[in-house]
């Protein structure tokens, strides 16, 4: 096998001629030392808030922020990095996606050297920093911490005489009763985001098979083909097939987020299963911003398998940020990244004002500024008391396995693939990536956050 340096090759054949031919009509030069950041905020309110408080308010360097469509940002960053360009701050959907490949290609700087300077070891939750390391080097910082939750509209629950479920039996009863009342038991849909598949896979694994089993498989001690996983996947996808999720498998495929939220507001659905990132989205549908008096509430995702604890907090880094080795001002970019992920005041204000997801820095419920939604403060006090943690695919699973889990979840739902085959596929992909050293470090399930 012969090693080709892509850049040399491209460079030799193409760039000389291209530059000669086209640089005459080029844009301005590279004297600009601005820190460039691409992000994917969902609406203009969030974009404006981010621009004002995370970009304009940062005085130590000029930051240029531009927002990208959610479906396009990962491809845009990959394409740009491959071409030797790209933003100074490289955003990825978690530490296990993109970061390992970019690290291998040498596109990112090793942040370890800055850890002491900025005191990151004290600032961040240890599990989050551990998951952000590749071969012992800190390659990214977590910008968003999230977990999975069970959402309800208390009015709907009360009116229909339902009880928020805590375990498998209660959950099945909840869904049966809701169905009998003509409701969709669990609002969900993947039309806007294919990744919704993995939210459910994560719950099937961590709450159906249990975090101990997942941890064991993640370390390679046991296999994903273990019956505990097969049963969990079969049981959970069985709920879909019964029509409990989204009102049927087909509807699940076409439900948009707007549909899902509306079902929760109007009581068409009894509950919603999603992540804590929904806090920010739900404010557009509930209460003053939506022009109604409805409220939402959250609870822990119930246990869905024998022997699985009733409260398991799935750990997730929803977004990671790294520094491009081609950044014009590397030190300035690192300093900005530090601001973005650890400036407690800015971050907590954003939680208060826009329900942004904070980074996994050490936050206590009492640390939030006054005016913060009590549901957020509650979440953090519960998280602090967490006894068991679970593992999300977008934080602790290697990339190809994660992609496999997303794509083939639909095959299981539609009956084109059995749960056993699905798990066998996960095992096959995972074993390869484990051997290649692409599996991030995971904390033990018994410890807190």
């Amino acid at each position: 096998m012969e090693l080709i340096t892509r850049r040399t090759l491209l460079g030799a054949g193409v760039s000389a001629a291209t530059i000669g031919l086209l640089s005459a009509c080029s844009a301005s030069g590279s004297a600009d030392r601005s820190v460039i950041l691409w992000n994917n905020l969902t609406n203009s309110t969030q974009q404006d808030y981010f621009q004002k408080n995370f970009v304009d308010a940062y005085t130590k360097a000029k930051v240029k922020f531009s927002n990208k469509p959610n479906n396009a940002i990962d491809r845009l960053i990959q394409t740009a990095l491959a071409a030797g360009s790209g933003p100074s701050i490289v955003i990825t959907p978690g530490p296990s996606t993109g970061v390992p490949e970019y690290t291998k290609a040498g596109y990112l700087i090793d942040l370890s050297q800055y850890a002491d300077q900025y005191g990151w070891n004290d600032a961040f939750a240890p599990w989050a920093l551990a998951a952000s390391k590749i071969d012992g080097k800190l390659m990214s910082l977590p910008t968003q911490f999230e977990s999975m939750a069970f959402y309800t509209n208390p009015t709907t629950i009360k009116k229909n005489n339902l009880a928020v479920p805590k375990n498998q039996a209660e959950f099945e009863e909840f869904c049966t009763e809701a169905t009998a009342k003509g409701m969709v038991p669990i609002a969900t849909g993947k039309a806007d985001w294919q990744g919704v598949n993995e939210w459910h896979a994560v719950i099937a694994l961590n709450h159906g098979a249990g975090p101990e089993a997942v941890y064991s498989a993640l370390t390679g001690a046991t296999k994903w083909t273990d019956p505990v996983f097969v049963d969990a996947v079969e049981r959970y996808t069985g709920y879909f097939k019964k029509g409990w999720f989204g009102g049927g498998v087909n509807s699940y495929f076409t439900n948009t987020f707007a549909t899902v939220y509306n079902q929760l507001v109007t009581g068409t659905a009894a509950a919603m299963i999603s992540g804590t990132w929904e806090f920010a989205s739900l404010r557009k549908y509930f209460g003053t911003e939506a022009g109604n008096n409805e409220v939402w509430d959250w609870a822990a995702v119930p246990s869905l398998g024998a022997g699985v604890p009733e409260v398991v907090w799935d750990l997730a880094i929803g977004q990671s940020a790294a520094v491009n080795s081609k950044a014009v001002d590397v030190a300035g970019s690192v300093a900005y990244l530090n601001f973005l992920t650890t400036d407690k005041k800015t971050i907590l204000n954003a939680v208060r004002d826009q329900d942004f997801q904070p980074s996994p820095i050490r936050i206590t419920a009492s640390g939030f500024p006054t005016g913060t939604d009590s549901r957020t403060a509650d979440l953090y006090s519960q998280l602090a008391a967490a006894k068991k943690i679970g593992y999300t695919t977008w934080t602790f699973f290697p990339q190809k396995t994660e992609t496999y889990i997303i794509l083939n979840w639909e095959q299981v739902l539609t009956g084109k693939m059995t749960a056993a085959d699905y798990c066998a596929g996960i095992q096959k992909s995972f074993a390869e990536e484990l051997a290649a050293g692409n599996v991030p470090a995971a904390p033990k399930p018994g410890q807190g956050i």
Partner: protein
Amino acid sequence: MSITSTALLTRATRLRRRTPPKGTDAGIFTCVSLTLLALFAIGPIILFFFNSVKTSNDYAASSLGLPKTWEWGNFLDAWIQGNIGAGLINSAVVVAGTAALTLVVSGCAAYALARLDIKGNRLFINYLLISSSLPTQMFLVPLFYMAVQARLYDTQIGLILIYVGLFSPFATLLLRSFMLTMPKELEEAARMDGANELGVLFRVVLPNALPGLLTVALVTALSAYNEFLFAVTFIQNSDLLPASTTFYSFQQGFTQNYPLVTAAGVIMIAPMLILFLFLQRRFISGLASSGLGG
């Protein structure tokens, strides 16, 4: 588009049109079918328009009926919140630049292929045909690399050059076939008078090929206006984003207000729709009869 040139075009079209076969008494089946097909073509757009002036609740109840109230304010809201004005201006720049440059590039090449009888003519035509039948998604990474090296990334001129590259093979084929239908006498006369090829091209051929050029300009403009994948990849600065990208982002950001997204969609299709209705003869006749009409 000046009035005179429009008039000229209409005249040219009229002259070039062949006598249609005599209309016969079509059966009731034919008339009903044609009307139903017309409804099929235009009905969805009308429904889309209705949806754009509904309230969110009205829309959620049904996406098919007439609006209960006419919320004209949706258009203003969409215009402001989606930053559509800027998108349309950027599109105008990219579309005009693409069309103009394509005309120059393809006009010269088509002239050579139609009139100069160059070596390898046929092979080159086949190359052009194949080069407009490739999966362009594969070009993203190499093109991005080249654009960055040439400092053309995140510039409108870069996007224009890519569009010209993508659209010019087809434009050349279309223009060439149009030029083949033009009489040669004028060119020959000009050559007899000692004009060089460049002179013949610019003083004789291009003015006479104006209807064909306009068709090609319109076809290219439409493609550039509607293109999305390359626009979102090669323009980074949000102040430079064209309308197709603006609409796509807007659609993602405003999922909770579908009528607003719809209003943005209506605004986005309006310029091309108006242009088409104004120039439909040129658009349709030129496209169809210059090449494929046989």
